[in-house]
């Protein structure tokens, strides 16, 4: 059976920007993968097509069919994990065997208070609307 897992130290999954993300990856594949990497990245979901960016990569040197490895990443100052009505941005650490097309993932939250920034509530109404003259806008 093929398994790839990412475990964060202490089961912790919430971080401040700039903090270190540490943990351990382990894998058990049918054959030795051509290459294996641990990636720190963010991705979006919601009303728009998904965007994502890999921020840091640690490559596993000459991986065997199964094994484990400790990793450590330093988080950048942003972007924060956030959720609006249209866009959610989330962070994750993923263990990927690119050639085999398989991966395991652990989600994490990066925010100023160690939680996701919520921007999905409605804002107060605009004061301009009240006085706006009758013209197309």
């Amino acid at each position, binding site marked *: 059976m093929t398994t790839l897992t990412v475990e964060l130290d202490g089961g912790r999954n919430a971080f401040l920007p700039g903090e270190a993300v540490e943990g351990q990856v382990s894998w058990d594949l049918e054959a030795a993968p051509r290459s294996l990497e641990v990636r720190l990245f963010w991705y979006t*979901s*919601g*009303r*728009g*097509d*998904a965007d994502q960016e890999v921020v840091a990569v640690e490559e596993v040197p000459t991986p065997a069919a199964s094994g484990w490895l400790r990793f450590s990443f330093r988080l950048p100052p942003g972007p924060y994990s956030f*959720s*609006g*009505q*249209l*866009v*959610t941005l*989330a962070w994750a650490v993923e263990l990927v065997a690119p050639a085999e097309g398989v991966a395991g993932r652990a989600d994490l939250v990066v925010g100023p208070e160690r939680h996701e920034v*919520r921007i*999905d*509530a*409605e804002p107060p109404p605009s004061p301009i609307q009240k006085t706006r003259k009758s013209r197309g806008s």
Partner: protein
Amino acid sequence: MRAADNPFRVQRLVRLSYRLEEPTWEALLARFASLGRRAALVGPEGHGKSTLLGELGARLARQGFELRAITLRRGERRLARPARERLLAGLGPRHVLLVDGAQELAAWQWGRLRRASRAAGGLLVTSHRPGLLPTLHECCTSPALLAELIAELAVATAAPLPPAAELFARHDGNLRAALLDAYDRYAERLP
């Protein structure tokens, strides 16, 4: 509502499966074979052509065919050379070409692609209008289908939606537009 919690988020919409009412998948694949594996999926925007193309492609891949796929954007009247090379280089009978949005190609470009694809084992396209190739399947939508998709996406969520028939009519049967409309209605709900 958080965008990632919205049951109609784009990442879920693209994973919806095509509801083939009739004939069966096997019959459809047999018909494709009988047409010399040169055929088109026809229907207006938002009627599931791209989804059906993807699913037929997956089944052809399981039959042992190697897929070469391309999606044309609106107004993309010709294939850029890198794309054409990736699509046509070293074509053999084990290859099937999938062309999403073939109606966008200029007539001479389409003719050229069609000629070049003779070496391939198959050519399956989607188009808004019939006539490019024999029609394999005409993609239709119905209020019932929209209701079924909504039910699948928004399980156990109190629906802030109008009846599927109303939503269906408002978007002229364009299910993609209807489902994005549903997204917007859900998005405005309080967390």
